[in-house]
């Protein structure tokens, strides 16, 4: 993965003393890079420093071979497209007019900006909404418009802050598919606080925790490394004493529910069900839960990540 956007040792201390980001490094090349972490873990601050909106207290960022905070910073900025979490659209201007503004700000001539805006509206599936006022767009349409806006400058790197938060599952999936498509030809960096999304769509994940990156890599290898064991959850009415099952470790035991951990769920499942029934359990439901990034986060921090239940 050739990095088009790379940061080393980013640190941000706000005047009130908050250390929002504390030594973050990352690299993003073609494909989908996801910053994952709960609210307040430093994703937004890292992104803002990376795109040139907020000067780091320390550290370096390079985009397309130019230092973002160096004398040629405008070249680095010109090669990125950024959309803040709440893209600042003028609500009474149309979707098209808002895109044209983004284009003009990037130095694109008016006629060209109009043409490009139309093309991008089509790309993100908003062709019908061109002349709609932004105030009349749904949440999902607004997010797609934000993506179109960040594409106005035809950037090599796309940086999108929480493009899916607050959307219903259908709209989310739609958006991730779009991001996937865009990531086919450029570097796309996206943040999310929902582990399931990162796990499902990312090529590479950076896990943020209290201003630091605590783990990085493709989701599968992160899971493999940090949370290799699946869980088997049995519900119903359990006997007094739990049976011991080969290849599985008891994690939770109470009258309505039993949870075992195993690195070979397919092998352990029949033995476990047999053992429980033999011990006198009445089973209503047995489920294998394969580990995900939520478990990775839990394993690394001892804290449950926010949004686990909200995973789409």
């Amino acid at each position: 993965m050739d990095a088009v956007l790379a940061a080393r040792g980013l640190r941000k201390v706000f005047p009130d003393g908050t250390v929002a980001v504390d030594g973050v490094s990352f690299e993003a090349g073609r494909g989908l890079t996801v910053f994952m972490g709960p609210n307040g873990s430093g994703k937004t601050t890292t992104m803002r420093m990376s795109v040139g909106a907020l000067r780091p207290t320390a550290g370096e960022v390079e985009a397309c071979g130019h230092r973002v905070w160096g004398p040629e910073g405008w070249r680095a900025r010109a090669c990125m497209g950024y959309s803040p979490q709440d893209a600042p659209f003028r609500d009474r201007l149309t979707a098209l007019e808002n895109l044209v503004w983004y284009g003009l700000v990037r130095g694109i001539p008016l006629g060209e900006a109009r043409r490009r805006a139309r093309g991008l509206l089509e790309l993100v599936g908003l062709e019908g909404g061109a002349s709609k006022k932004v105030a009349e767009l749904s949440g999902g349409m607004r997010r797609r418009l934000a993506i179109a806006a960040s594409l106005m400058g035809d950037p090599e790197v796309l940086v999108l802050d929480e493009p899916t938060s607050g959307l219903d599952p259908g709209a989310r999936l739609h958006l991730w598919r779009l991001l996937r498509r865009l990531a086919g030809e450029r570097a796309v960096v996206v943040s999310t606080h929902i582990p399931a999304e990162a796990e499902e769509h990312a090529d590479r994940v950076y896990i943020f925790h209290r201003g630091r990156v605590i783990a990085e890599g493709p989701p599968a290898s992160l899971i493999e490394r940090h949370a290799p064991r699946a869980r088997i959850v049995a519900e119903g009415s359990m006997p007094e004493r739990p049976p011991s099952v080969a290849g599985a470790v008891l994690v939770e035991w109470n009258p309505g529910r039993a949870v075992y951990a195993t690195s070979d769920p397919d092998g352990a499942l029949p033995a476990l069900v047999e053992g429980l029934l033999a011990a006198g359990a009445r089973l209503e439901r047995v489920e294998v839960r394969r580990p995900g990034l939520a478990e990775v986060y839990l394993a690394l921090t001892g804290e449950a990540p926010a949004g686990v239940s909200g995973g789409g």
Partner: protein
Amino acid sequence: MADGGSSLWRVLSEAYVSLKGLLRYKEALFWVIAFPILWYTLSVAVWGSPNPPTVNVGVYNADPADGAGNLSKALVDAMRESGLFHLRFYNSSGALLEAVERGRVDAGLEIPGNFTESILEGVPARVVEVYERSSWGDFSSQMLDGFLHAFTDSIRSRAVNMSIHYLTLASPNATAAGGWANWSQYAVRWLRFIDRPLHVEAREITPPLLATPRGVRAYMAVSMMGVEALFIGLFAGTQALAERKRSGALDVILASPMRGWELVAADTLSALALVGVSSLAVALYSLPAGARYAVEPGRLALAVALLALGTLFTIGVGLLAAPLARTPEGATVIANAIAFPAMFVGGIVMPPTVLPGPLRAFAENWPLGRALEAARQALVGQATPSEALAAAAPAVAGVVVVYALGVIVYRRLLASAVEYH
């Protein structure tokens, strides 16, 4: 687009959204179009016709004489025809007094019963003037006084001419003795002097445009353009950062290849465009409202340049005040707090000449006041374009200094916003 595109379009970006948004945002529409037109309409209604004010005069005429020889009737008719007075009649001196006291009329005139009779008999006649001691009451009584004096003059003229007539009739044959003839010639000359001790020669000239109602309306319209330059510039300057911080647009701009000076230029251009639209709206509205301008390409270009100069100044002031404006609401308060007083004491809605001493000096000299007055003179035609230009020249230095300082302050503010916002 790794080349970062062209500055020109970045500089036009804000003008694009302001103009596109003008008709869709009611508050923008109000401040840029409705407010100046509304104010203009009110100004024209209140001050737009420089007719002499009419004084309400109550009259109690007790003079019973009638027919052509009735001098009290001649006096009342003359008052009515002068157009200076609006007359109301009362039938007792008590009713007249009460009307003045209650303020139903500004002054009262009582003509006693023997008015005509006295004058015809050559005895001084008497009238009674009633007025309230107040500036308007004084003014009314002076108007009345002036009129009565003119009337007195005409009676005296008649009396003198009658005397001359009888004197020449009484003169014995002039050839007899030189003494009487000399004396009577001398007396006639003297009487003529008494009749008109002062000859006032009045020459009428065509009034300058400004002295005509249509010129005054044009002057007021240009004043409204000044009001817009004041408000729009101050809003643009004070809001430059606060509003963008709130909306998040600052992040988008900072993350773009846009540079600091381009952002200031973009805001400036946007403010100029709005002042332009507003001025055009006022100008178009003022034409059917009766305004007449001295339209020549040179004057027009000069006025446009002067308004732009005034707008640059107010943007500069706004940028200087921007560090005090942490929120968009705060910026609005600051802009209004500067603009409202400046509008009155700065010679913007009222000509500097009506202001008291020190304020007048301020109004005539601060850059927006100077630029606007020069624009008014250029468009209402009292000064030649080169005179107007010369009058505005000192303002240019002030504008350059204030705008440049404003830009420096704004860039510092921007630089600190990049550190933390």
